[in-house]
């Protein structure tokens, strides 16, 4: 059995099917044989009936001729008909009596049928029929078929005994050829089967090889196939399977190579491997996408963080210079965002206005020097600062961009304006324009950086403010020092002023005291009312201080002189001092004459504030005047004379002055005190002798005079004569800058009215150049002397 199990299909079929087919053929032959025997026997039986019928007709004919019943005639007559076998060798017809006696039979006439056959015959009780019986002979027992028919006229059976073996003799003769045919047919069939099975087997072989390869994980080639048989289907399926596997393997390989977009179709919806691979691919894809996203997120995070670090560094480095800070921040921010321009504004919140000042701007890789101030709420930047919200525009108004590259580049497309705020306090605004849109993380980044910038701006602002305050306080300190100095100077001035005033006051007090003790003093206002008065006036006029104050001075003036006084008063009011003799009527008609000076007093504006009256009582004089009018007139005449003399003397003095002036221009003039003190030397002294004014003035003649030193006796004499009122001349020479100068001096003593020496005038002449004309000069001098004598 094992060997069989190991056989391949073709062998099995050959082993099993071919004998089976042979057997089937054999069985079919046997069955056919059996059926043909029966058929043949039946045919023989039917033929026997036909033969019997014929024999009956003959019997009828014979009966007819012979009379009724079986007679010897009949037997005779009939014997002929029964003497030959009907069809075969031993099937002789017979006429059988009821008892089974062969009435007529070719060979057995007089014999009898075996008893049991006769009994079966009787039992059959039918007119015609057949029955099998064994014919027992001496040698053999032969099976025979007895076909019979009852023939009434004879009361006997017409029967034929058929031997089946005889009948079947023909058939037996055909059996061998039949067997040969069967064998041939079997062989043919087996061959055909073999031929038929061979390709099947081969295909199966291929299939099995491929299946085997498949089982071992190989992927075999396709099986050639062209039909739709089961094997074809099987091959197709296998091919499909191979294709599927190839595809799947390729798919798996692609997955392995991370090519997840490979177009893979599963073999069917039930392709578990395919579906599983697809799921795997999908999950890989998801994982990969997840990874991608994570990677991207990581990149963004790293971009974000390194940006934060970078700007942190920038902000930390330049936190004392706002402009450099702003430049660096905006430049690096624009670059970091891959934008093309940007500006940073600082929020100014001073006393007068709130605005945003462009600290720095940067465009097309260049710093731009633009000055710009935006009011809070003005434009996008101002709005951003006011609302403290980021503004992001994907379309910029064409006129918005204020920086153009000048190189014909396109205008930026998107604009990002971010407030620099710290806890809702605004410190500035950053504005960035770019050709690209700003992704969300960049906006977040700028916002985040914005906080840091705001913090730094705040601290820088604070630093700057602190520095400013420091500078300011320094300046204020200096100013304070300057002001303190000024105040000290003011103080000094006030003190000096006060001291000066004190000094003057003391002086004035002395004067006032002297006046009050010796003179009458009154203080009047501009209406002429007495404001103050001194005791001498009280004594003179006889009124007390209280009585006088508030009184009009005019009321004290003698009525007949009041008109004159009014005139006088007006003059004083006009600002002039007036001296006059006033006739006053005092208490109890006491008449008093005052020689008084009325002086107006002005304030700083030059406005009249008071009038001062100073005078003394001249009543006694006046009385004397009146008592001796004559005398007075004389005095007046005298006064007139004196006046005239005075005029003359004035004239003389004038003349003298003129002369002196003339002298002054030509001569060396010096003036000495009686004691010899030189009080004045004129310019000629300086010019001619080179004497310095300050060297000579204030010195005594005897201390500097050449004569006084070298000839004291002569000088003494000379001096004495001068004191006696005698003019003295002398000549002397001296060396001035290496040049000998000759001077003629003429000393003239000046006597006062009492004849006492008052001054000595020395007139000197430079006679150096005229020494040879001395005589001539002497003449001029003597002439001059004469003139002087006159």
């Amino acid at each position, binding site marked *: 059995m094992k060997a069989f199990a190991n056989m391949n299909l073709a062998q099995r079929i050959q082993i099993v099917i071919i004998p089976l087919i042979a057997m089937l053929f054999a069985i079919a032959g046997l069955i056919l044989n059996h059926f043909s025997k029966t058929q043949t026997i039946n045919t023989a039986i039917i033929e026997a009936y036909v033969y019997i019928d014929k024999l009956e007709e003959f019997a009828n004919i014979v009966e007819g001729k012979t009379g009724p019943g079986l007679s010897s005639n009949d037997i005779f007559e009939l014997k002929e008909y029964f003497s030959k076998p009907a069809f075969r060798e031993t099937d002789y017809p017979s006429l059988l009596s009821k008892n089974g006696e062969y009435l007529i039979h070719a060979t057995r006439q007089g014999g009898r049928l075996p008893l049991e056959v006769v009994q079966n015959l009787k039992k059959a009780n039918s007119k015609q029929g057949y029955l099998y019986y064994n014919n027992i002979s001496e040698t053999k027992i032969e099976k025979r078929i007895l076909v019979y028919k009852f023939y009434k006229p004879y009361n006997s059976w017409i029967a034929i005994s058929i031997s089946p073996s005889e009948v079947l003799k023909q058939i037996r003769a055909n059996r061998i050829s039949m067997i040969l045919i069967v064998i041939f047919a079997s062989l043919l069939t087996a061959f055909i089967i073999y031929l038929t099975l061979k390709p099947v087997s081969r295909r199966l072989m291929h299939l099995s090889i491929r299946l085997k390869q498949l089982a071992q994980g190989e992927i075999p080639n396709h099986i050639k196939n062209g039909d739709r048989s089961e094997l074809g289907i099987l091959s197709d399926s296998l091919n499909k399977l191979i294709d599927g596997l190839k595809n799947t393997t390729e798919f798996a390989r692609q997955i392995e190579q991370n090519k997840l977009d490979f177009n893979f179709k599963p073999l069917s919806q039930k392709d578990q491997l395919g579906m599983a691979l697809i799921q795997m691919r999908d999950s890989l894809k998801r994982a990969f996408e997840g990874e991608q996203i994570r990677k991207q997120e990581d990149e963004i995070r790293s971009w974000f963080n390194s940006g934060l670090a970078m700007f942190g560094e920038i902000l930390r480095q330049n936190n004392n210079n706002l402009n450099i800070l702003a430049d660096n921040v905006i430049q690096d921010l624009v670059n970091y965002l891959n934008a093309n321009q940007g500006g940073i504004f600082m929020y100014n919140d001073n006393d007068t206005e709130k605005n945003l000042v462009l600290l720095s701007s940067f465009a097309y890789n260049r710093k731009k020097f633009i000055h710009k101030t935006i009011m809070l709420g003005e434009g996008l930047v101002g709005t951003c600062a006011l609302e403290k919200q980021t503004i992001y525009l994907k379309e910029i108004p064409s006129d918005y961009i204020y920086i153009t590259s000048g190189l014909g580049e396109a205008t930026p497309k998107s604009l990002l304006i971010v407030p620099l705020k710290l806890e809702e306090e605004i410190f500035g605004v950053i504005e960035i324009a770019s050709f690209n849109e700003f992704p969300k993380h960049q906006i977040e980044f700028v916002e985040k950086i914005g906080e840091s910038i705001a913090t730094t701006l705040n601290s820088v602002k604070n630093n700057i403010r602190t520095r400013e305050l420091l500078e300011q306080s320094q300046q204020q300190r200096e*100013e304070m020092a300057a*002001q303190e100095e*000024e105040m*000290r*100077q*003011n103080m*000094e*001035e006030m*003190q*000096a*002023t006060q*001291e*000066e*005033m004190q*000094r*003057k006051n003391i*002086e*004035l007090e002395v004067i006032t005291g002297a006046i009050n003790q010796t003179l009458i003093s009154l203080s009047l206002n501009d209406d002429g009312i007495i404001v103050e008065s001194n005791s001498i006036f009280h004594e003179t006029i006889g009124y007390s201080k209280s009585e006088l104050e508030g009184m009009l001075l005019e009321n004290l003036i003698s009525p007949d002189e009041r008109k004159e006084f009014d005139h006088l008063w007006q003059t004083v009011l006009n600002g002039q001092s007036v001296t006059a003799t006033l006739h006053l009527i005092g208490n109890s008609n006491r008449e008093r004459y005052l020689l008084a000076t009325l002086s107006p007093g*002005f*304030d*700083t*504006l*030059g406005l009249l504030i008071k009038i001062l009256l100073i005078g003394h009582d001249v009543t006694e004089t006046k009385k004397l005047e009146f008592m001796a009018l004559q005398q007075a007139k004389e005095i007046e005449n005298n006064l007139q004379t004196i006046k005239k003399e005075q005029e003359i003397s004035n004239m003389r003095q004038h003349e003298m002055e003129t002369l002196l002036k003339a002298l002054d221009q030509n001569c060396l003039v010096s003036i000495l005190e009686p004691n010899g003190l030189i009080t004045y030397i004129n310019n000629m002294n300086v010019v001619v002798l080179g004497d310095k004014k300050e060297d000579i003035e204030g010195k005594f003649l005897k201390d500097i005079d050449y004569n006084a030193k070298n000839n004291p006796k002569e000088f003494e004499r000379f001096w004495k004569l001068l004191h006696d009122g005698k003019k003295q001349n002398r000549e002397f020479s001296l060396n001035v800058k290496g040049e000998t100068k000759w001077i003629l001096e003429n000393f003239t003593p000046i006597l006062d009215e009492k004849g006492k020496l008052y001054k000595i005038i020395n007139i000197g002449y430079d006679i150096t150049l005229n020494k040879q004309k001395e005589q001539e000069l002497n003449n001029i001098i003597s002439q001059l002397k004469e003139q002087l004598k006159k």
Partner: protein
Amino acid sequence: MATQRMQVTDQDLLYFVNTIKSTSRYDFSEYSDKSLKRRLQKILEDYNLDLTSLLTNLRLDKDFLEKVVKEITVNTTELFRDPPVWHLLRSRILPRFKSNKTINIWHAGCSSGQEVYSMMILLNEMELLDRAKIFATDLNTDVLEIAKQGVYKYRFNLGYLDNFDKVIKHNPLNFEEYNDVPYEKYFDIDKVRDTITMKKFLTERPIFRKHDLVVDGNIFFAKFDLILCRNVIIYFNYSLQNKVFELFHSNLYPKGILLLGMHETILGPWATRFERLGQAYIKK
């Protein structure tokens, strides 16, 4: 702060004055003792020096001496200082010169120049500026430099504007009168820089010179119609005052006017040579 310094004695002052006199052309011998003592005290305190060191330094260091001299002088002034004086000038004094062809004015001791600019502003308002020749002198070259610049602190000197209003815009003799003269006509106020800056037409007009009243006499080849010497002689003693009065008297035209400070008066020999009109002294 170091210990309280010894009070400067008369002897100290004498040493100081003599040292200055012997090493430079300055002469403080006739300055008011009391004032000079206080200034010396201040200098000793400011430089934290004792007298001996100060005197040594003065002898050795000319620059230091100049500096000390500058610090000794007092330079108090302001725009339209003592408005009543300016009213007097406006109403009683300057009108006298209306018929003059030229008006020579000498600001003796002009300090940092405010008085000079006040005068020019007033003259301009009275349409006399074209005729005026302004001379201004001071001992201290530092303040002269400020005077030439014509730039002053603003906040510290807000009083200037009051004075300006009082003198230029109002007339005390007529309260209804109001001349709306803008400040910008004469100076620019910069509140940020804290400055008052005189206009160029004012700063370029005066002749500023260094001058020592004690020794220099009249350094200009001119006589004057008006000499202003305010709050200067208070630092001088009686004798020096008289010398200065003589100098002024001799360099004034007849009827020329000497204007002294608010609390300065001429007493003594020169009193009779002038006629007084408030702070103005008119040469007889």
